[in-house]
């Protein structure tokens, strides 16, 4: 991981930088497994190593791939960074040691969640229970942030269509890739659904499943072209689904209100508290899934679509516009 960071600092070819970033994320995911954070590791592997890398490669199709040499001396930033690091390391002397169960951060609410999550929500995966039920407000907020981020990208990249310069090479003509992708596609989608609905019992949930499902379509789009992916999942559907997921989440909270409970309290939705919580978690996770998957797809369409437009423009060799004076 450390080597990968140095690689990112040293490399000037941006392709190398991005691939190093991907390797780094994957290593980070394995570290997370070692730290018992299986849910998080799954997300990091899918998002960090998968989505971000694809996204950055799509951007590299649009901009220059070599970094200009540094103009300033890197000494001052280096000193500042080393000072910051030194101060932080000095601060670690007072922090509690690694891995003890009696550390203060492991004493507060965590034991309560571990003891009561199964009794109160019926979900053995405590992470899912906390995510969707105990801290439902947090998650609703996060989903809204993702929603906002997706809208931001759409506003920036689709409002005005200008031509970019660059060559995005989509690997459309490689028969091996085409066959492999067609074989993999249903498996990935099935896996996403499994992760979605098994999230109460094993690692997984709406976030991971959403990214996995989006990854399947994105893979298809990378091989067969963004237009083909748009034919499978039209852009309009994606744009409708982004707010729909947030609405499902928020609406579940309102349903609780109407049934004489607090906002985002799912207990009255079922015959017993446990059944209600279980149903609530399932619905909320479905909302998360819808928003995450469609936002990722929308972002991919926005970036990938630009790259293809640029490619198409170059091919048709239209008369130069005002930008090429």
């Amino acid at each position, binding site marked *: 991981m*450390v080597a990968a*960071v140095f690689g*990112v*600092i040293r490399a000037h070819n*941006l392709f190398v930088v*991005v691939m190093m970033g991907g390797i*780094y*994320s994957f290593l*980070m995911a394995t570290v997370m497994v070692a*730290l*018992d*954070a*299986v849910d*998080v590791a799954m*997300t990091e592997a899918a998002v960090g190593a998968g*989505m*971000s890398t694809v*996204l*950055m490669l799509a*951007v*590299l199709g*649009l*901009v220059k791939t070599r*970094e*200009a040499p540094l*103009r*300033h001396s*890197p000494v001052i930033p*280096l000193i*500042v*960074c080393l000072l910051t*690091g030194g101060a932080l*390391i000095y601060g*670690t002397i007072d*922090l509690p*040691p*690694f*891995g003890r169960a009696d550390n203060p*951060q492991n004493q507060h609410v*965590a034991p309560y969640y571990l003891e009561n*999550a*199964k009794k109160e929500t019926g979900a053995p995966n*405590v*992470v899912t229970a906390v995510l969707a039920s105990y*801290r439902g407000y*947090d*998650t609703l907020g996060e989903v809204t*942030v993702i929603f906002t*981020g*997706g809208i931001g*990208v759409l506003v*920036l*990249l689709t409002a005005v269509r200008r031509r970019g310069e660059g060559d995005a090479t989509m690997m459309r003509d490689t028969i091996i890739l085409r066959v492999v992708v067609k074989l993999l596609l249903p498996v990935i989608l099935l896996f996403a659904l499994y992760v979605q609905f098994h999230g109460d019992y094993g*690692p997984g949930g709406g*976030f991971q499943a*959403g*990214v996995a499902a989006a990854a399947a379509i994105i893979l298809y789009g990378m091989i067969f072209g963004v237009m083909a992916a748009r034919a499978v999942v039209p852009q309009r559907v994606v744009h409708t689904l982004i707010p729909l997921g947030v609405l499902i989440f928020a609406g579940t909270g309102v349903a609780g209100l109407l049934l004489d409970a607090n906002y985002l309290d799912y207990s009255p939705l079922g015959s017993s508290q446990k059944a209600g919580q279980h149903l609530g978690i399932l619905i909320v996770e479905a909302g998360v899934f819808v928003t995450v998957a469609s936002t990722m797809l929308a972002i991919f369409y*926005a*970036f990938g679509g*630009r790259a293809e437009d640029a490619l198409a423009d170059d091919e048709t060799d239209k008369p130069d516009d005002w930008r090429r004076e």
Partner: protein
Amino acid sequence: MTDILASVNYWVTIFLMVGGLYIIVAHGNMVKKLVGLGIFQTSVYLLFLSPGKILGGTAPILAKEFELYSNPLPHVLILTAIVVGVATIALGMAFVVRIHEAYGTVEDDEVQELETDA
């Protein structure tokens, strides 16, 4: 010896954080800056996750065989943070694309020069 190793997880975190910070501050290329930002972000994930690990514990999925579980709370916080992280990176990338369209470069020095010339 165990005392020294007791906070090694924080040192790794700090190294990654400082490395990311250095990339953001010292490099002018905006794509590289965003990769640095990503590294900075993952160091924060580690900062949250590593104190939640309990030695001898297991992943917080309840089963009869296990007694000791790691702290589930940081996992929840970081899970959402990762997905939000990719949304912010995507937003940053969208800005990079637009800046490249407007100025023809993604180096912040060159953008600044073009601005002062204009």
